[in-house]
């Protein structure tokens, strides 16, 4: 039982890392970013590449990744996505446009990744056993969990108790209204998008220490992130964290008690149930 809880919570940390970035991008900047998983793999590639070519610790890579991915994502938003935001008349139109644009973007990123490393990003870092309350787990998963928790708490505090954070939440609620009260909506959106991409890339660098990735695996993470964001409620960081927690614990529980073959099925079952009974997500507010 303790095993399930601990392994499950650690898996939740991984899921939270995957989902929090997309939540900011989708919830605030209103970009349904299908290249989210590819950005994650790019972060993983950075960690792998620096570790295998020049023995740079993935922890240091995480710090290096922050400015690079923030700038990169900001540029993507500013030059690739802003024109879409400007020309779209409705939220629906922007969603369709951004899905198409970022879908294309995902192929470009895959191309870049393949040109650097077409095979598996196989390396291990902090792959050491550690015992927590009598349950064995690995140090790298624990580290990813702690960073996820740190990012989650920091984001929550920033969004709820700081002035720029409130602006971000205001944009998440309504772009028109927040524009009327003097918030620089394009700027806040760009920051939210860049921050989201940064969290995703950091997550990728951390995840690569315990999951062997390759260029093709982005889509797997995009799908997981989507499920978690929609389960938790779009634009709700708390929701994403709770949803990641539920998914992680349930998947581990099912794998241990029932059958590992049913983990995916159980994840999608919860997703369907939440969509049926709380379509706005666990913490989402009714849009009408």
């Amino acid at each position, binding site marked *: 039982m303790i095993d*399930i809880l601990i*392994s499950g919570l650690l898996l939740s940390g991984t899921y939270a890392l995957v989902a929090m970035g997309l939540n900011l991008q989708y919830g605030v900047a209103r970009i349904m970013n299908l290249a989210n998983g590819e950005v994650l793999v790019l972060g993983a590639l950075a960690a792998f590449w620096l570790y295998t070519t020049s023995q740079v610790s993935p922890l240091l890579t995480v710090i290096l990744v922050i400015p690079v991915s923030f700038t990169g994502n900001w540029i993507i938003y500013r030059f690739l996505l802003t024109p879409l935001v400007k020309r779209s008349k409705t939220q629906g139109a922007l969603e369709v446009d951004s899905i198409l644009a970022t879908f294309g973007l995902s192929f470009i990123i895959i191309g870049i990744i393949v040109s650097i490393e077409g095979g*598996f990003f196989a390396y291990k870092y902090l792959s*050491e056993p550690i015992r927590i309350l009598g349950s*064995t*787990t690995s140090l790298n*998963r624990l580290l990813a969990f702690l960073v996820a928790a740190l990012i989650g708490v920091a984001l929550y505090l920033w969004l709820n108790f700081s002035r720029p954070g409130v602006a971000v939440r205001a944009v998440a609620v309504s772009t028109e209204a927040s524009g009327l009260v003097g918030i620089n909506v394009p700027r806040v959106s760009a920051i939210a998008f860049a921050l989201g991409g940064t969290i995703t890339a950091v997550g990728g660098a951390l995840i690569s220490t315990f*999951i062997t990735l390759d260029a*093709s695996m982005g889509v797997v993470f995009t799908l997981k992130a989507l499920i978690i964001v929609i389960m938790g409620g779009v634009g709700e960081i708390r929701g994403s964290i709770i949803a990641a927690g539920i998914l992680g614990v349930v998947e581990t529980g099912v794998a241990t008690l029932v059958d590992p073959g049913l983990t*995916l099925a159980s994840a999608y079952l919860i997703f369907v149930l939440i969509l049926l009974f709380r379509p706005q997500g666990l913490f989402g507010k009714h849009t009408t």
Partner: protein
Amino acid sequence: MIRRSVLALASAVILATTSAFAEGVIKLGAISPKTGPLAGGAVVTQWPNIQLWVEQVNAVGGLNVGGEMMTIDLIEYDDKTNPGEHIKLAQRLATQDKVDFVVAPYGTGFNIASAPIYGKFGYPMIAVSAITDKVDELTGRYPNLFFTLGTTTAFVEGVKSILMEQRDAGAIGNEIAMVNVADAFGIELADKARELFTAEGFKIVYDKSYPLGTPDLSPVMKGAKDSGAKAFIAWSYPPDSFGLAEQAIIEDLDVNVYYSAVATSFPAFSNAFGSKINNVLGAGGTNVDDPKIAEYREAHLKITGKVADYWASANTYAALQILEQAIVGAATLDREVVTQYIKDNTFDTVMGDLNFKNNFSNTFWSVGQWQDGVFRGVKGSNVDGAVDVRLKDGWK
């Protein structure tokens, strides 16, 4: 009307001159994944060997086809690990690029899916990365299709004989923990293993499958550990072969026999885990002490910059050598003649002398083991140099 016939004449002349220029060149088509789920394996096993062989052949001036030296012109496409895409590209290779020969695709499913289209154009297909028990049925239907890497049963038999030997030696009991990836290859192998293992009196005390791409395999490994079995068998794919090994290290899985299937033989596996995976068994194997293999591996590293994997790399290269010797031996680019030549002759390759009986080459490694940084063959069919199996002794 006149204008049109002039145009037609002009284009005919252009065509004639270009094909005159094209003489002395053998067009070789290769379609395999460079992106998508199978790309990680194809960039290790498939693509580097094609590059190596083409560069080597062209470096000596090409192939001697009936007295004329012809160089290889390689046309390569990425099928994105999508069978539909592969078929489209195969059509393009045959009708637009008009290639003379093709390299068989990467992956069992892709070889089977594309056999009709390559067969329609008469290309001999020397499949390597394709393992199935339906060899007879498939080669009966597609007489141009050849298999070189063994059958599902042969792979399970290899593992079974190790288990029986170790049971007789007292290293393991009757109990086995077995897991498989819930995908075609994993399911087929696990089904076969269930049948063959239980027939020998083994009890599979932990028998579970997990979905492809499972992010956390710790529940699987904890379950296998709790079963207390001294033998762990995983019919796994690349990402999970890595994931299972990592969890085995974390859980300090106490077994004497540890086997994981695909990608265990990749140099990346050893690079990632170092000495911790010493004595891990896996699908494949090679005999690095064979001078031909040693020479091949050296050339592979020099020309492609990558260490060859310890399994299908050598077979992939051998398949290209067979094609090379068949073209030279048949002294023609006529595909029908070359195909017949492949069926009728024995070929001198890095895998030794290979020949086909009912389109099946019965020379391959089935199980190998990491022994002090080298993945050596321990079980195989008609191969020399198998070493003794060692027991897994901790994960240090």
